[in-house]
């Protein structure tokens, strides 16, 4: 079984696969509501949150106005770089009614990058607690989704699994700005989820 939620896009699987079953594609990373959907091939759900039911859809009133509080829980700065790119004139995220905000008090969505270092766990939870309900969480990037390359070391958790309830998982190392935008629209119910891993536990 392959867990796309732990994929860092290193392309080694393509290079070493003896039968050439794994191919390179130019597909973007995609967001999913259920962690288990990211498990390909085994047709079974993995551990932790993987078996949990998909998060309930976000209420309609957020569809055209979403405020995001971003927390870097120990990323390599790749996800931050792509998040910043969302604000450049090319992507211009504001046109979709989606904004980044400084205060968790006025945020609807907690967007988390990084594998959750030991030192960042408490500040992350504190930020979550400071948000008014209803509040939503999006794991952005492979580190936040499955731990990535640093997860499980002496200083890191395995991403958000077991740390916070997650409404949308977006792997990618890093997910490009268009993929992040797509995932945000999936979360808002403005675009359909389009996970299509062969044999995924759907």
């Amino acid at each position, binding site marked *: 079984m392959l867990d796309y939620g732990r994929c*860092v*896009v*290193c*392309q*080694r699987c393509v*290079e070493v696969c003896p039968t050439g079953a794994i191919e*390179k594609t*130019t597909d973007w990373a995609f967001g999913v509501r259920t962690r288990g959907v990211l498990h390909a091939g085994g047709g079974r759900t993995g551990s932790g949150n993987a078996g949990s039911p998909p998060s309930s859809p976000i209420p309609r009133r957020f569809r055209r106005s979403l405020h995001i509080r*971003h*927390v*870097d*829980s*120990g*990323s*390599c*700065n*790749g*996800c*931050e*770089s*792509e*998040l*910043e*790119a969302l*604000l*450049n*004139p*090319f*992507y211009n995220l504001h046109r979709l009614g989606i904004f*980044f905000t*400084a205060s968790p008090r006025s945020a609807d969505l907690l967007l988390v990058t*990084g*594998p959750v*270092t*030991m*030192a*960042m*766990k*408490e*500040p*992350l939870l*504190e*930020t979550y607690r400071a948000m008014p309900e209803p509040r939503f969480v999006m794991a952005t990037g492979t580190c936040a989704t499955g731990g*990535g*390359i*640093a997860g*499980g*070391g*002496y*200083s*890191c958790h395995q991403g958000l699994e077991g740390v916070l309830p997650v409404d949308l998982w977006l792997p990618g*190392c*890093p997910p*490009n700005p268009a993929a992040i935008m797509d995932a945000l629209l999936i979360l808002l119910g403005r675009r359909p989820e389009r996970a299509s891993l062969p044999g995924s536990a759907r």
Partner: protein
Amino acid sequence: MRPCTSQVIGARELQKVLGELLPAATRSDPHRRLRMAYARKAGETDLEVLYYLSLGKGCPDLLLRVTPGQHALPSLANQFPALSWYEREMHDLFGIEFAGHPELQPLILHEGVTTSRPPLIGQVGAPIHYRTSPPTVPTMNATEIQCLPFGPVRADIVESAQFLFYYIGEGILHFHQRLFYKHRGMEQRFEGASPMTGVILAERVSATDTVAHALAFCQACEMALGLLPPPRALCIRAILAELERLVNHLHYFAELARMTTLRVAAAQGSWLEEQVRQINGALTGSRFLRGLLGVGGLRHDLELSGLADRLTTLESGVLDFLGKLEDTRSYLDRLIGTGRLSTDVAMDQGATGPVERASALDRDLRRDRPYGSYRTLRFTVPQESSGDALARARVRRAEVTESLALIRESLARLESGPVSTVRPDEAPDPAGEGLGAVEGTRGGLYYAVHFDPDRKRLLRVKIKEPSFSNWRVFPFTVMDTNLMDYAINEASFGLSIAGADR
């Protein structure tokens, strides 16, 4: 390790030998300096501490190797302030005591962290126990002094770190930065890894310095394993490294424009940055140029025929943007005199990259310790002397032009041929050790690698990150300045937290 000689000395001689090699009288020679210090396990219980020195322009580097008896060494932080953080790092991660250290409080592992054994000598993966505790700061009793704690979760899309300002009115009396919230224990992730896995890890230490990290790691492994990449691979590596410098510098100018509240310029800068990211993506499949470098060359060849034209189109926009910025009075007004770093402090505290070159220290590893195709490429190393935010910006502005010229020249020289070494070309390092030194966007980046006897697996990898050096320097430009200049000053340093924290 070549081009580096190695010398084993006793712990007692350490102070004397270092004092003789780097006497106070040569303090003005920027090429005579301590590059880094790190520890490694040597056998079951023993440790070894390595001091990596540069002994002057054109001289081979020197690696001093010391075995600390009873896990203790004399601290040299008072003579060589730049060594302070390295000693604190070894104290946190290896449990080495440095007698007489002026500020041996926790650095990498915060106050309140407990471990069964120090992480890098303990069992791999055994988690540290983190209990939230306040940082070590001076006691201030005067009621007029206010404290502003900022972070670790800050405004906007930024990396996590905490900054404490002690101030009266607008004036900053004391500044304390608490980094390493993002410490991921990356060096330990390399332990037991193959060189191929190592490259994938190195690419993910600091995303905006992907190529610099992969390159330094590959160079270190190539020295250890005796590999010489083919000319085409070396040429493409330089092109990728300069593309990375270009995109990072454009990001830097967009940030400076944003901090000086120039909305149009900020949009222009970030659009130019985006265009280079898209060029990188189209060229390599990765906007961060990941997945290309490999030990011995490149993992696959690249088709570069359209690159020159795309860069020519971009160049006029870039030059126009940078020129207009420097014609903007309000921009100059906020940069001139802001965050001044003197040459002495830059030298003593170990500043690197554009930061040191803006404070009249003329150093660049591409020229001074040339590697790959930089051995034959011609370029100038821009330098400024006023040491303020404007000087740092001017150095980077000139580097943008140099990078574009370097890419163009490399493309013109590019010959066809293989991109990966199939067999070793030179004798491997007898001890299975190697050192890679690369001038990244932010300055000098070193990787030291130690292989197992079979040269299949990595035992220890040390990463000396340029931002680790420059964060050490940064507070010296904040104390006694004012709060309004802080954000501009921080942007003018162009620091990465992921890299420094590792």
